[in-house]
């Protein structure tokens, strides 16, 4: 991310978008591949999570991959995996939401969102 100027267009450079997209797809494939070997959830003490919840609002830009790393290390590591094969606590996620193609679909949708006059 370019720190020198105020990025008021809220836009990432093409190369960065591409790199981010490739990394995200790797994370998704790894997620579906490795999920059965992971715990369904990991509980943490409130005090342990508090530090992460109370971080200050960032004024400055940060490199997108480092934000992604933080997301993985501090959020995804403690998430309750409702798409886990041993999550037996109910139908919070439908079959449709547990599969891969819809994620690809959402990604495409976000790339070409028209807002109104959508297909469905």
């Amino acid at each position: 991310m370019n720190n020198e100027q105020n990025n008021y267009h809220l836009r990432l450079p093409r190369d960065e978008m591409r790199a981010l997209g490739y990394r995200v797809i790797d994370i998704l494939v790894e997620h579906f591949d490795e999920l059965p070997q992971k715990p369904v959830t990991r509980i943490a003490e409130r005090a342990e999570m508090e530090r992460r919840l109370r971080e200050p609002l960032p004024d400055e830009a940060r490199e997108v991959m480092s934000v992604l790393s933080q997301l993985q290390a501090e959020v995804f590591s403690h998430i309750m995996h409702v798409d886990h094969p041993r999550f037996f606590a109910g139908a919070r996620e439908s079959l449709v939401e547990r599969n891969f193609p819809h994620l690809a679909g959402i990604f495409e949708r976000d790339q070409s969102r028209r807002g109104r006059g959508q297909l469905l």
Partner: protein
Amino acid sequence: MPEYLKEINRAEEEVNFCDYGIQLTRGFRALKLWMSLKVFGRKAFAAAVSRGFDLAELAENILRQLPNWNIVTPAQMGIVTFRYVPQGASAAEASRLNERLVAEMIRDGFAMLSSTTLRGDSVLRFCPINPRTTEADLQETIDRLDRFANTMR
């Protein structure tokens, strides 16, 4: 009619569901269904639903063979409810035990179940509708439940 609603009232050629909600916007939720049905086909979804129902029946059958485990409502549409009631335990004691079992399973992390209350008693719920749940997943989860229950009593 407020000005900002006149514009959406004019359109006759398109049906935009986002115009029918209070927020005048809406997530593209139907895309998930459309894309998934196109990619996997109806048959795969039908089989996945049936498999979830079968797994709930399998869980019921495994539990029926274990001592101290009672089926409260038999497997139907992918859900079976059950309860650990050790000999001599009152209904209230059994309820507390089953609630502690849920907490113990979460702490363990291997599998996640929820509880609910049926006719005043706390019961456990098995809802094995993830199409990637294996029979071994079910068996190991029930083994753990049984082990934890037996050490708690």
